[in-house]
């Protein structure tokens, strides 16, 4: 039990890292990037290229890959994302879906179908562990991953709270037009956010390549975990994303231990769905005057506490109130 909690917590650090870029992009630029997982894999391949072909040490290659990915994020936002976003809600989904396919097949074309991993370049760190008690041990790599996630996310949160760019990002996130009126170039802010998001994503991809092995087609699976962590933790909040990742990791790990090993992913999905429905009904409940009122109204037709007419009247009233 304690062991699964710890393993789940450490896994959650990776999920949070993976989800942070997605959360940031959605929170500030209101942009859903379906190529997120593939961009993480691209980041990992970039690091592999640096290690393999250019002979850098793995951590140096990770550091060097970050500015490259930041530039890529900046360019993507300037030339692709902004334009598609202007055309409505559906187009960004389609375009990033297509971008994902292009990335997958592009990576396949350049790097081939062999599965790759960074683990063999970081030596024994990939599987070494600290023995805490006889039963309990924690892997050095999961702990490192968790520490990196906490450091990066805290650093980013500090940046958002205390720097000029951070203020601009927060202002743009809450109201781009009002921010523009105050002299903030919201497009420039979006580009910076895309660059930061891509750095986070690439870092997550590199960490994935250290703990697992990757092929060019592994992106979509990562996207699902990232999405779940974002939704559980609340969109656009970095602390929320961290909590979301940890909740996802722990619920998967506990589900596998307490229920059955088949429930690993299912528990994660169920927690995600539960959070989603609480959020969804939460909005409705808010409109209808709180949870208690909502339950009463939903139970109404069955028990006859409230007549059909009064529900309709109430709904109409709410609609008038809101709009």
């Amino acid at each position, binding site marked *: 039990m304690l*062991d*699964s909690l710890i*393993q*789940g917590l450490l*896994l959650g650090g990776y999920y949070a890292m993976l989800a942070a870029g997605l959360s940031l992009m959605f929170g500030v630029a209101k942009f859903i990037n379906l190529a997120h997982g593939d961009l993480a894999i691209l980041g990992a391949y970039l690091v592999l290229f640096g290690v393999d072909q250019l002979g850098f040490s793995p951590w140096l290659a990770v550091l060097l890959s970050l500015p490259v990915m930041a530039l890529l994020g900046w360019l993507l936002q300037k030339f692709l994302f902004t334009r598609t976003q202007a055309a409505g809600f559906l187009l960004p989904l389609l375009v990033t879906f297509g971008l994902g396919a292009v990335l997958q*097949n592009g990576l*396949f074309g350049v790097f*081939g*179908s*062999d*599965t*790759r*991993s960074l*683990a*063999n*370049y970081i*030596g*024994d760190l*990939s*599987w*070494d*562990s600290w*023995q805490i008690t006889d*039963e309990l*041990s*924690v*892997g*050095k*790599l*999961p702990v490192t991953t968790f520490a990196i996630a906490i450091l990066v996310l805290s650093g980013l949160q500090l940046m958002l709270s205390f720097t000029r760019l951070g203020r601009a990002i927060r202002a743009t996130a809450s109201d781009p037009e009002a921010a523009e009126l105050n002299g903030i170039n919201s497009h420039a802010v979006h580009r910076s956010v895309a660059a930061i998001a891509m750095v986070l994503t690439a870092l997550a991809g590199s960490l994935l390549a250290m*703990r*697992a*092995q*990757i*092929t060019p*087609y*592994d992106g979509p*699976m990562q996207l699902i975990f990232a999405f779940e962590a974002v939704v559980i933790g609340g969109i656009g909040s970095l602390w929320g994303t961290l909590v979301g990742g940890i909740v996802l*990791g722990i619920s*998967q*790990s506990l589900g*596998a*231990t307490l229920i*059955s*090993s*088949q429930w*690993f*992913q*299912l528990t994660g999905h169920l927690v995600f769905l539960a959070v989603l429905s609480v959020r969804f009904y939460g909005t409705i409940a808010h409109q209808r005057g709180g949870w208690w009122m909502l339950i009463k109204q939903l139970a109404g037709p069955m028990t006859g506490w409230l007549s059909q007419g009064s529900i309709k009247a109430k709904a109409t009233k709410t609609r008038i109130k809101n709009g």
Partner: protein
Amino acid sequence: MSDNKLINQSISRRHFIKGASTIAGGSIVSLGLMGTQSIFANPDNIIRIGYVVPRSGPLGVFGQGDEFLLAQINKQFANGLNIEGKQYAVEILVGDTQSSSIRASQVAKDLINGNNVDLMLTSSTPETVNPVADACEAAGVPCLSTTAPWESFYFGRGAKPGEPSPFKWTYHFCFGVADFAKLYIDQWSKVETNKRVGVLLPNDADGNAIRGLLLPSLEKAGFTIVDAGPYENGTSDFSQQINLFKKEQCEIFNTFPFPPDFPVFWRQAAQKGYAQQVKIAQLAKAGLFPAELESLGRLGYGLHAGAYWHKDFPFFSKSTGMSCPEIAAGFESAAGKQWNQQVGANAALFDAAVESLIASRTPKDKVALAMAISQLKTETAVGIVDFTSGPVPNCATTGLVGVQWVKSKSGPWEFDLPIVSNADHPFVQLTGQMTPYKIGG
């Protein structure tokens, strides 16, 4: 030759678009005709072979050797194939499944209806083989396939045990679950253990087939099985399973995972001290390709596996005109990568195909060709393929050898793969002594 056409003419825009649309839409590539100019003047003298394999996508690694193999076969049949005194040109049309079952079925139908193939070949995983075979069965085109456990080919497509075979046109040769039992019982006797086996089987078609069919025969052979229960592919934390194996002191570990899951499991097993206890770590499905082992680093040395082809097999491949060591060396110099099992398995598919074409006497007659395949008994790169004594009609079994991935002493590749068990494939000589698994080799 027809494939010179593009070079001789300057490519007009219209030609280019036509060509590009063929590639994008059809994903079928003709490798040109083999045979002299005069033969293929008459279409009755051209044997068209469809070859449907994953060449891109997650299964693309299975197709790594195809370029080399097809070049070799092209060379071998440059003058065509002489059958009963008649000279035939051979045209191989390669279709890419893009690792998708739906696409596999579509490509097979295109080859049948659009290119009028006389024989279909397909290989690599049930996801590829089954849809292609189904398309051929429906259209009445002879089809020969390999590299998918024969149970998933036969029962997976709706045949019932004890009933006559529902298939007329489709034939398959590969190992089956019984081969694993025979292999493991022998291979696991090579190292002293407590005979307690921890098994990690996912909740997928292969995992459940192994759980139902292999585990009982291992228990009968005196092994204690500790099954950690089914899990979903893509699981990223295996602490529950590892703790169970540790508690039960399983010195033998066996798994049939979705390949990318294995390194995640094994690294965690090392983190939690289980890999340090294991004496035999037997992989199936994962660990087929050297790249997978290389990405494990030091944890990869000493892992045990089964192999359906090996460079030290003593068999001759007629379609490529090469012995097994020559195929491996040829692939290594052509691709710049270490040989893998699938190169030989795909060579064997062509060996069996060529032999069937010859045995049919009239290769353009589909009934005669299907008949010839059903009675085929011939040597291929993976060993003797014998459809007259298969476990069920339409299927022939080939053997598995036990191998161990050990750190190479001489190079040039990181791993050597000695054959350490041959109970399931007695024609093959052992080339090494099995050692217990130890981190770092």
